[in-house]
């Protein structure tokens, strides 16, 4: 008798997801693991931390620092404006049809990133752009004479905010929907003013969602490459552009430094996504 019990105990059900696992392994996990491993290996193939230490050149540190500031600033502005718009749509007493339009529009614009966004931006604020000419001809203000430059920190922030706001609106609206009317009524019955309700009830409940989405927007901006490349022609040295140039032509003259750079990016987006997941779990305690 064949040991049919053992035969049946084998994880045959697992076979059903084998194609998927193979796909994920080959095209997601192994490539990433390969880069991470490359960051901790020297030329001879031995384990080393030297590549990570080698990241501490002024060029790379500046690139990371610029990326972090850029991502954080655009995430913060996107969060604030997106939250204001979401609040207005859900609780602001505006006509109902507006909500549908805002949500659809957010769905479109959050996907309208990358190269075309850069073009729209150049057509608007470039040297002969729509708004540039408008300001010059109608108000006599030449923004370029005033020192405005698209290929600058604030120039990129303004472009990034364009896809950060709609993402914020899409993620935070369900959270605002989750604020129960009873909470407000209970607060009012106990004599709270509107300000007190927001400070002591609504914002603490929304806090984890807000922080989590901030972290998500940060990661979203940190990994973005295409908009910046199309806008600056890979001149502005932010971390993803540095990595892009490294992959194209080994500009750092050390392949292992490239892997360490990529690893550094994974660490940063990994941490911010971790914050998002933890915060979302917290938020779900209140908002179901």
């Amino acid at each position, binding site marked *: 008798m064949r040991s049919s019990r053992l035969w049946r105990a084998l994880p045959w059900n697992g076979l059903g997801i084998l194609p998927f696992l193979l796909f994920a392994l080959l*095209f997601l996990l192994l490539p990433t693991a390969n880069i991470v491993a490359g960051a901790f290996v020297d030329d001879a193939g031995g384990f080393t931390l030297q590549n990570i230490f080698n990241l501490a050149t002024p060029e790379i540190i500046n690139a990371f620092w610029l990326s972090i500031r850029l991502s954080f600033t655009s995430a913060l502005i996107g969060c604030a404006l997106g939250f204001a718009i979401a609040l207005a749509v859900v609780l602001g*007493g505006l006509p109902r049809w507006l909500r549908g339009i805002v949500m659809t529009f957010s769905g479109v614009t959050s996907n309208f990133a990358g190269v075309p966004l850069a073009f*729209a931006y150049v057509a608007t604020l470039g040297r002969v752009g729509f708004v540039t000419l408008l300001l010059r001809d109608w108000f006599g203000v030449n923004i370029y004479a005033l020192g405005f430059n698209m290929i600058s920190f604030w120039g990129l922030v303004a472009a990034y905010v364009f896809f950060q706001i709609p993402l914020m609106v899409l993620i935070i609206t369900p959270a605002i929907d989750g604020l129960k009317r009873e909470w407000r009524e209970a607060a009012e019955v106990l004599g709270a003013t509107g300000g007190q309700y927001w400070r002591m009830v609504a914002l603490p409940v929304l806090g984890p969602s807000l922080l989590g989405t901030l972290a998500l927007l940060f990661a979203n901006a940190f990994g973005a490459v295409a908009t910046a490349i199309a806008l600056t022609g890979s001149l502005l040295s932010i971390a993803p552009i540095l990595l892009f140039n490294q992959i194209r032509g080994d500009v750092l003259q050390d392949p292992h430094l490239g892997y360490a750079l990529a690893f550094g990016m*994974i660490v940063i987006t990994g941490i911010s996504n971790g914050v998002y997941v933890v915060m979302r779990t917290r938020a779900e305690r209140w908002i179901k």
Partner: protein
Amino acid sequence: MKRILSWAAIAVGVVYFFLPLVGMLEFSLKMRRGEYSLDAYRSVMGDPQFQATFGYSVLMACLTIVFGVLVVVPTVFWVRLKLPRLRPFMEFITLLPLVIPPIVIVFGYIRLFNTSSWLPLTGSALGTDFLLMCGYAVLALPYMYRAVDTGLAAIDLRTLTEAAQSLGAGWITVLARVILPNVLVAVLSGAFLTFAIVIGEYVFAALLDRPAFGPYLVWAGGNKAYEPAALAVMTFALTWACMMLIQLATKFSKHTRMPH
């Protein structure tokens, strides 16, 4: 007071979003001196490079959608039916493409599948195309997986499967003729979103050196004046169309669902 503040927030949003959109539209019409014309669009449409790269990206998007559906639908079905304990694990895996920057993933491809590796996919054009398709499927995985998972959550999977099986259907028949039609709307949502992601994608195509629409856009941005704005308008319209089709599909499904 509250309403005034709300309108103010909306107004800020409208200004911030409509200025660039109006800006690119206006700019794209200015190619002819002194009057508005569609010259920039005509110039784009007539460019053989545009036709080739756009066609390539559309084909890539379609292949990615088919491939993604073939990978995702049976997997979600199987996990929900037989391996529900694996769901957190699957959620984790399918979230990873949002965590790992795309540029790092493609960097890994170049290392792992180069000509001197055990699977030299980048050695031939066809192999690289396949690799690019898989990369796009990875980028779309979080959206496709969630869309299908939500779709399957709404139907009584076990009963449907058992009913089909008791009538003699095999697994392929169950999937293709019972499950897929039931989650078609979810699959379509995932498909249109995939299309919107793939069509203008730049980093994967550029670093794998394939003639896709994204690299063409960047090239046009560096070499042309008015055409980029026209291209941006066209891409925006395409993205809008994809989102509209998703909404349409969702609405359609609400009307056809039987009342319980």
